[in-house]
C-alpha cells in the first residue's frame, strides 16, 4: 500500500479532491446497502417488491439476475465495498487509490449501462433497486471524472 501524501491534500485542489473522495465513499455506502439488501432477498428466495415501478419481479427473477448461483447483487455489493475502500483511502491521501477508484468505477459504469440495456430492451421491465444502483454508479462516475480532472490540472 502506498503511503499517504499529506502534502497533496493541503493545496486547495488537493483538499477539494479529498472531499470529493470522502463524499464518493459515502455515496458508495448507499450502493453497498442496496447490494446487500438485494443479495439477501435473492438467497432467501424472495423477490424485492418495487416501490415506484412494477418490474422488480421480472428483473430480479430473470436469468440475468445471477451468474450461475452467484447473485449479481452480491457482485455489486463487493464492487461498492471496493469503491468505498478505495475512495476512503484516496481521501486520506493514499495516492494510488485514486486511479484504482476511477478504474473500478469505470468498470461498474460499463456494467450499469449493460444492465440498463437489458432492462430496457431485453426484459422490458425496470427495477427500482437496480435504477437506484445505476444512479449511485452514475454519481460515482461523475466524481471519478471530477477527481481525475482535478489531478490532471494540479
Amino acid at each position, binding site marked *: 500500500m502506498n503511503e*499517504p501524501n499529506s502534502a497533496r491534500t493541503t493545496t486547495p485542489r488537493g483538499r477539494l479532491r479529498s472531499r470529493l473522495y470522502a463524499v464518493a465513499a459515502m455515496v458508495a*455506502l448507499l450502493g*453497498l*446497502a442496496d447490494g*446487500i*439488501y438485494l*443479495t*439477501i*432477498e*435473492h*438467497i*432467501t*428466495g*424472495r*423477490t424485492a417488491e418495487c416501490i415506484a415501478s*412494477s*418490474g422488480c*419481479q*421480472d428483473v430480479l*427473477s*430473470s*436469468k*440475468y*439476475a*445471477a451468474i*450461475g*448461483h452467484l*447473485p449479481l447483487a452480491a457482485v455489486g*455489493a463487493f464492487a461498492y*465495498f471496493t469503491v*468505498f*475502500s478505495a475512495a*476512503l*483511502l484516496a*481521501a*486520506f491521501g*493514499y495516492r494510488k487509490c485514486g486511479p484504482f477508484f476511477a478504474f473500478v468505477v469505470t468498470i461498474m459504469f460499463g456494467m450499469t449501462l449493460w444492465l440498463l440495456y437489458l432492462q430496457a430492451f*431485453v*426484459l*422490458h*421491465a425496470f427495477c427500482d433497486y437496480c435504477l437506484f444502483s445505476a444512479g449511485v454508479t452514475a454519481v460515482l462516475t461523475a466524481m471519478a471524472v471530477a477527481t481525475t480532472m482535478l489531478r490532471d490540472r494540479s
Partner: protein
Amino acid sequence: MRRSLPFLIIAGVLVLAIGAGVLLYRYRMEPEQPTTVSTPVPQTTATIPEPTATIASEPSVAPPATTTPAGSTAGPVFTYGRPGAEPMHLRGEPGAPVVLEEFGDFECLPCSLLWPILEKLERDYGKRLVVVFREHPLKMHRYSRDAARAAEAAGLQGKFWEMHDTLYRNRAAWVTAAYIRPYLNDYAAELQLDVDRFKADIDGEEVSKRLAADWDRGESLAIDRTPVVFVNGVKLAPTEREEPGLRAAIDKALAAKTSSP
C-alpha cells in the same frame, strides 16, 4: 492514528455490512408456521383427456396429435417452439378454444402470485380455457429444481397438479428451509402418494427427461424469466400478467376464435 484511521473505518464498515447482511438474512429466514396440506381442491383435475381434443383454426396452435401413448395426456399440439415434455400437464378442457401455456418455477415469487389468478380464471372461463404448465426452474434458485422434480415425480403418480398447488401454497415454508427434501416427502405423503416410489422417481431418469424437454422448449422460445405466459401462442408482456391483462388476452383469443370461420 491518522494512518490507521481509514483502515479502521473500512474494517468497521465491513463488519457492519456483514452484520447487517446476517441480521437481514436471519430475519428473512425466520421459520414460518408450517402449513399442512389440507385436502387439495383440484379445480379441474388433470385427468387423461380423450385424444380427440381439437384446437382448430388457431394459427399458432395446431390440432392435437390424434395418436398418443397409452395413458398419456392428450392436449393441444403447439406449432411454435420445440416440443416440451409429453404428455404435457394441462388443467381444464383439452379441447378448449383458448390455451394458456405457463413457463413456471415453483421458487419464483411472481409465479406463486400468478397461481391463484390462474385458478380464478380457470373457474371463470370453465371449458373455454385450458392451462398448460411447463417446468422452467431457473438455475439461480436454490430449490426450484428440487421442487420441479417433486412435481414431476408426483405427476408420474397422476398428482402433478396437486403437488403443483401444494408447492405454491407452502412456498414460504420450503423456500427458507435448510433442507427441502423432508418437506417434499411430507407433501408426497399428505397427497397420499406412494412415497417410496416418489423418492425413487424424484431423482429418476423419467423426471430428468421431462425437465430437460420442458427446458428445451423454453429455450427455443427464448424464455429468460419466469413466469412467462402464452395465450394461444401469443407471448404476453409482463404488464399483461395481472388478472385484467390475462382476461383481456383470453377474451381476445376467444373473440378471434368465434370470429374465425
